[in-house]
């Protein structure tokens, strides 16, 4: 018991240290300012100042290494987050399957961790080699924070190894609490690393703590860190990482399911796939809302930057984004629908699938409908204007917000149906409870549609505001349904779930998630970087390199595909290695 309290106190202490560290470490005032020295502005390199090494394209190299590092880092940071939750669930429910699965997730993470460091180091070298002025400037702005980052990386390595290798040694009783405390430290360090790296990336988009006219460093490191887009990106990446990590381990489970012949092992990986898909969807559902906040903050920081993204040359990217998210949603839903066959009661829910499919596909089509098109004169004449008479209204935000909210609500419905398919409520108020849930769906969806229609008659600047009631409706449906289900399904009669009773097709649907997620992350990275247009650091340090242009969507798509394919090859190789590691040769007789 004493150890239990000690470990909790230890965890709280570590948490407090990391909460306070930014203020303590970053609050040092600018020495140059205090000493009254002349402030030096941001560097102004000319084209000749950018090193040319062989025929190498600096931007493509940096892009590739950065993206690979980010993919791996997102995965490596995300998995411990939901592993610790599963570990806790396993400890709470005394169901060792959760604990073993969390351990297996960490096994894949271990294989990917060294690759993360390798790509991170290569990225740093590439940046210092090809963009010395920019990196010099960033070092000047963030000073000691780079050292803190390096120290945290060391701590991350230590805690990760301890967390993984002490799993079986600290598996039961109070020792489990100690193990989870190590996991908490690991996650805190991991998140701190991500927040610091985010500070550098967002500083380049919305610099603060520097003189706006010259770029001279006039503020503290903390001021540069706490730039306008830091927290929105922190939240967006935090949630996205969970969804992404879930998708990758889902891919692992699908791979193992496809590769495995033994029924009991197939059942294990089917269960793992289902859980991973659940994590991916759980992370994915709130993601658009974090995205709204990020975009709203971008608009608040610079309307010009916001419009460049949503209405300028990058606007078409959001149509591609819609295709990808639509693909993810369709694949996730398809997987859930296939999952209904795992239970004998699933068939009674299967009849609703076609209606859900109509909403998901309909929402997807609305989402991919563009509004502001880049048209030739002939095309404008043929179209009868710059916007299509009937489809044009579907291209603006109120329609898209309505579509995406309905898609999220119905994706949640698929999840809820599967969950219900293996449980029969026994409480006396089950019928009333179901009626309340149905009423929640009807009222919520009606509100989403009407708020969408209201968006058409309100001025543009308030359109984003009009989406708030839609978001509230979606979240209300989800949260209240979960709460009612928790109480209603207490003591419910459990139906047998036939884990492993899944088609191979469903596993490919599960594998679509990591592929589409990875490509989508690459695309969003391209958008985020492109928002800076021809600036290394927006408004204070110009990009004078030969690559100071935004590549076309096609060029970007090709690059992202090559990077994603490389990443998938590495990950599938890691999966293969993991399977190889658990394979034993039968002793010759």
């Amino acid at each position, binding site marked *: 018991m004493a150890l239990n309290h000690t470990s909790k106190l230890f965890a709280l202490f570590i948490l407090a240290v990391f909460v306070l560290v930014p203020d303590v470490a970053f609050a040092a005032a600018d020495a140059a300012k205090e000493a009254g020295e002349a402030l030096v502005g941001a560097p*102004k390199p000319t084209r000749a100042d950018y090193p040319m090494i062989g025929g190498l394209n600096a931007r493509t190299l940096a892009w590739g290494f950065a993206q690979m590092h980010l993919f791996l880092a997102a995965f490596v940071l995300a998995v411990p987050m939901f592993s610790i939750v599963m570990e806790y669930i396993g400890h709470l429910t005394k169901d060792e399957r959760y604990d073993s699965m969390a351990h297996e997730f960490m096994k894949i993470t271990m294989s990917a961790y060294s690759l993360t460091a390798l790509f991170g180091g290569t990225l740093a070298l590439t940046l210092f080699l090809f963009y010395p002025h920019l990196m010099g400037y960033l070092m000047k702005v963030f000073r000691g924070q780079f050292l803190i980052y390096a120290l945290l990386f060391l701590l991350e390595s230590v805690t990760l190894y301890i967390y993984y290798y002490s799993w079986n040694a600290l598996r039961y009783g109070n020792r489990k609490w100690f193990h989870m405390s190590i996991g908490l430290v690991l996650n805190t360090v991991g998140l701190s690393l991500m927040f610091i790296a985010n500070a550098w990336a967002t500083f380049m988009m919305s610099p603060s703590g520097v003189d706006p006219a010259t770029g001279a460093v006039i503020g503290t490191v903390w001021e540069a860190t706490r730039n306008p887009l830091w927290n929105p990106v922190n939240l967006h990446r935090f949630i996205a990482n969970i969804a992404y990590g879930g998708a990758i381990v889902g891919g692992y489970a699908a791979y193992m399911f496809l590769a495995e012949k033994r029924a009991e092992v197939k059942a294990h990986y089917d269960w793992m796939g289902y859980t991973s898909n659940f994590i991916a969807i759980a992370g994915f559902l709130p993601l658009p809302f974090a995205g709204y906040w990020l975009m709203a903050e971008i608009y608040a920081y610079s309307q010009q930057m916001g419009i460049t993204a949503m209405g300028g040359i990058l606007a078409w990217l959001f149509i591609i984004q819609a*295709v990808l998210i639509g693909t993810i949603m369709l694949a996730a839903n398809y997987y859930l629908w296939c999952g209904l066959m795992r239970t004998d009661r699933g068939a009674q829910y299967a009849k609703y699938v076609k209606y859900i499919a109509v909403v998901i596909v309909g929402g997807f089509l609305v989402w991919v409908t563009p509004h502001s098109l880049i048209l030739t004169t002939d095309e404008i004449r043929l179209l009868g204007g710059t916007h299509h008479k009937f489809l044009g209204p579907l291209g603006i935000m109120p329609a898209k917000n309505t579509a995406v909210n309905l898609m999220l609500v119905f994706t949640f419905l698929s999840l809820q149906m599967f969950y219900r398919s293996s449980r029969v409520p026994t409480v006396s108020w089950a019928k009333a409870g179901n009626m309340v849930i149905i009423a929640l769906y009807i009222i919520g969806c009606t509100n989403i549609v009407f708020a969408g229609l209201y968006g058409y008659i309100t001025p543009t600047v308030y359109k984003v505001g009009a989406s708030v009631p839609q978001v509230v409706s979606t979240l209300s449906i989800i949260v209240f349904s979960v709460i009612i289900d928790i109480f209603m399904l207490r003591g419910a009669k459990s139906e047998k779930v036939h884990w492993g009773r899944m088609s191979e097709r469903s596993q490919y649907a599960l594998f679509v998630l990591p592929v589409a997620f990875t490509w989508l992350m690459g695309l969003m990275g391209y958008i985020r970087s492109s928002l800076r247009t021809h600036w290394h650091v927006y408004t*204070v340090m110009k990009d004078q390199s030969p690559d100071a242009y935004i590549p076309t969507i096609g060029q970007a798509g090709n690059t992202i*595909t090559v990077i994603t394919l490389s990443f998938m090859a590495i990950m599938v190789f890691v999966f293969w290695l993991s399977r190889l590691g658990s394979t034993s040769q039968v002793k010759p007789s």
Partner: protein
Amino acid sequence: MTFARVMIFSLFTLLAFTGFANLVPQVQGDPPVEEKIDVGSIDMAGMVLLGEKLFSGKGTCTLCHNDMGRAPDLLGIDLAKEFPERIADKSYEGIAKGKTGPKAIEEYIMESLVDPSKYVVPGYGKKGSNDKISPMPKADTAPIELSKVEMNAVTAFLQDKAGISPTVPLPSADEAPKATGNDEDEENEPATTGVAAITKYGCATCHDLEGSEADIGPKLNGLAKRMTDAKILEAIVKPNVVIAKGFEADMMPDDFGEQMRFSELNLIVEYLKKLPE
């Protein structure tokens, strides 16, 4: 086997995404191109034209000033009516307050370019600012960085759109846009003195100018006594029409008319006329 199946599946999925990305319109986002301003010869019509280019180009005005409702659609509304109304608005406290006429409109437009929050058109302020703060960036600072001449050109364009004769001053040589730090742009900056123009086009490499002793082309000292302005000009842009005695045709480049700006030609002619005998 599973490895291969999964990789092939991934490849086809990725190819589908890539194919779609290549199907949509392809636009490359180039950095803003500096509009060349021939300060020596640009007239008011040129300023209006330049202003129009800047409005949709470097100024990025059309990003917000369009029919999407983010900012007043300056190309769609009646500016002749709009500008005087804004100046007369009781909440307007800017430099043109209480004034009327084209000059007041010029002052109002210039003010709104450099200090957009001075007057915010109702309904277009930053959210929560009660129309006191404009979301528009200052046109003379980063990321737009219009020069004084360029802002004058945009003002001239908007005055012209409002149906009034532009009142902005025409640029002087001192107001030529500053170099951007790009080597290529520096080379293309117009020369602002005769010596600079002569140096830029390497005239002294072939001609003896004030003792350069070059002898590939004829000496140009005392030229004013031998040739009129028009003849000097013709000799530069069409060097093979009249060949000086003792020299051959096709020795001098015949594309100076395309390479040089009109202002530079004038500067060179003026310089050559002043050469001593």
